[in-house]
């Protein structure tokens, strides 16, 4: 955790959720800005601790450990809201957005670049599907042993929104939360100027393929470059896996979405990646501003403000 300055902003950089993050604020009262940034960072870490599947004491680990048992695991109000949201996303996306795809990780080994065969996938696919989750609004039960919940698809974005709320509550009028590329702006950068956000080039590390202007609201990007390997016959396998086939998506290199909240932007970007060719009409129907990069590297954008200068 370290403070530094970027232009007129005070910045706090920290690691959480297995990534590098930063929160920025501009405020005449530096002590207040520092306190707000630390509180925002604490909020991100609280959510990480609560929902990480790597921590045995997390809510998620507790639910997953009880998979196949007859009892529902009772959850608190915040977790209930996230489960309700996940259920709604499953419904709105026609089953594409699914927080039960965790078992696919047992078939896919991205570190060893191992592509599973149909038999491998056939073993885990029956464990996937929100429809098999018994959720009554208070308690949740995974009906088959081996099933898993994973909030990885919304946790970081939710944390960005919550960190933003912490900054806003502290009276920060010019702030930015950046959790490894999922961003939420707390007001403009300064005196009405929007933040200029570079969009990661999907194929060139350390390069951006576009810049967008964000005065308020959130930007989230879903891309095939975060975790992937290339098969011996040259196919790129990324970590965004289709819940029904268990295979990686291939239509888009990346999709960035702007929405008033980060969790909505992130969910739309993920659903769009999974939709393939239908992504752009879906995003337009949802009233979302977006920037999409197709497999040939062409940009498709809608309602996105590019920098004027």
């Amino acid at each position, binding site marked *: 955790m370290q403070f530094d300055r970027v232009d007129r902003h005070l910045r706090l950089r920290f690691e959480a959720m297995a990534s590098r993050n930063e929160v920025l604020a*501009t*405020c*005449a*009262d530096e002590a*207040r800005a520092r306190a707000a940034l630390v509180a925002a960072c604490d909020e991100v870490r609280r959510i990480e601790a609560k929902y990480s599947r790597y921590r045995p004491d997390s809510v998620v680990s507790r639910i997953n450990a009880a998979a196949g048992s007859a009892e529902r695991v009772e959850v608190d*109000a*915040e977790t209930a*809201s*996230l489960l*309700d*949201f996940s259920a*709604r*996303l499953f*419904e*709105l*996306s*026609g*089953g*594409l957005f699914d927080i039960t795809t965790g078992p696919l990780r047992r078939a896919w080994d991205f570190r060893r670049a191992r592509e599973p065969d149909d038999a491998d996938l056939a073993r885990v696919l029956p464990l996937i599907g929100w429809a098999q989750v018994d959720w009554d609004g208070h308690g949740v039960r995974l009906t088959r042993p081996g099933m898993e919940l994973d909030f990885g698809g919304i946790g970081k974005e*939710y944390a960005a*929104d*919550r960190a933003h*709320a912490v900054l*806003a*509550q*502290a*009276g920060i*009028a010019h702030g930015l939360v950046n959790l490894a590329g999922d961003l939420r702006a707390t*007001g403009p950068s*300064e*005196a*009405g*100027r*929007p933040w200029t956000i570079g969009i990661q080039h999907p194929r060139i590390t350390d390069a951006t393929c576009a810049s967008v202007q964000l005065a308020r*609201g959130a930007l989230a990007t879903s891309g095939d470059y975060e975790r992937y390997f290339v098969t011996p016959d040259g196919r790129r396998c990324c970590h965004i896996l289709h819940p029904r086939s268990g295979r990686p998506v291939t239509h888009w290199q990346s999709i960035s979405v702007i*929405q*008033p*909240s980060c*969790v*909505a932007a992130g*969910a*739309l970007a993920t*659903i769009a990646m*999974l*939709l393939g060719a*239908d992504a752009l*009409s*879906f995003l337009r*129907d*949802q*009233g*979302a501003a977006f920037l999409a990069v197709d497999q040939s590297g062409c940009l498709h954008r809608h*309602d996105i403000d590019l920098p*004027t200068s």
Partner: protein
Amino acid sequence: MAATEARIGSVLAAALLLPGIAIQAHAESAPEQGTVEVQALDYRDWQPGLQRIRVKAPSVYVLAPIGSRWSVEGSVVSDSVSGASPRHHTAVSGASRLSERRNAADATVKHYGAHEGWSLGAASSNEHDYRSRTVSGTYRWSTDDNNRTWDVGLGRSDDMIGSSNDPTLHARRLTWQATAGITQALSAADLVQWSLGANIGHGEYSDPYKFPDLRPGHRSQFTSLLRWNHDLGPLDAVARLGWRYYGDTFGVRANTFDAAWVQSFGDRLQLTPSVRYTTQRAARFYVDPVYSTSLGEPFPPGYDGQHAVSEDQRMSAFGALSAGLRVDVKLDARWHLDASFERYEQRGSWRLGGDGSPGLAPFSARWFQVGVACSF
């Protein structure tokens, strides 16, 4: 295509149900930069065949933050007024020429808390025949998510009325002013505000420059203001609509409707065209320009010097339209220019329903204002 639900914003609507995710309105926070603004106003009004009043008013406004919780703001203005004093009916005769200077100043201290704030202000205005002093206070508070803000205010004015026509006139008018309002963010793009105001006063209301003009010694005024601002994000524009109702114990009732379109062109230029329509019912004691057969002009029929009577055009029934344009130019992070022009036309026949006060000449006015502001 997968069976996705294509209702606009359905994913966002679901996201907003998460705790702490609702799009938060900003609490009014202490300004981080000070501002100095110099403005010049040029006002003229006229009726056919007569240039009435011309006002030139340079003013200076200063806003200074003090720490992160306080600000002080104040302004001074010096008007030079020349032309005819307000007249009864529209007769050209009897309009005394005047040349006047008005000096006014006000100052406000504001405190900004996390979800509440208050302000205390004082204002003073001096002319050789009119002096006004006002003190006021406001308090506002918001819900935790700042989506709803309430405010209340209380003020007290003490006015002293004199007359260059009558050096012995030293009349007083005391007024209590109360306001209450609620502002609600209905969505990330919609802000609705409803404010109620009441002024309860007693003292001298008659116009010393008009004869005959005799008004009741008490006046209570009530206003209700409803505003709706809608942010049209994709167009980079904000639409503003407002409706104001006014009623007082003189019997005046007025409804004003206004609409403005705030259009941004990039970060530097903003154009705001606006229109406004007012329709007003006359005061109970307003008399039409029909004169007593025995006393003749300017005395109305049945004039006895006892009962309230006024021939002031502002107390008549009329309709008025105005249109304006404001231009804001941001030169850089520190410098800001603005200019606005507004034209006002008032006619008896423009009253809603058309039954306005008869026999009055059209009344026209225009404002031109330029300002330059610097933040520090």
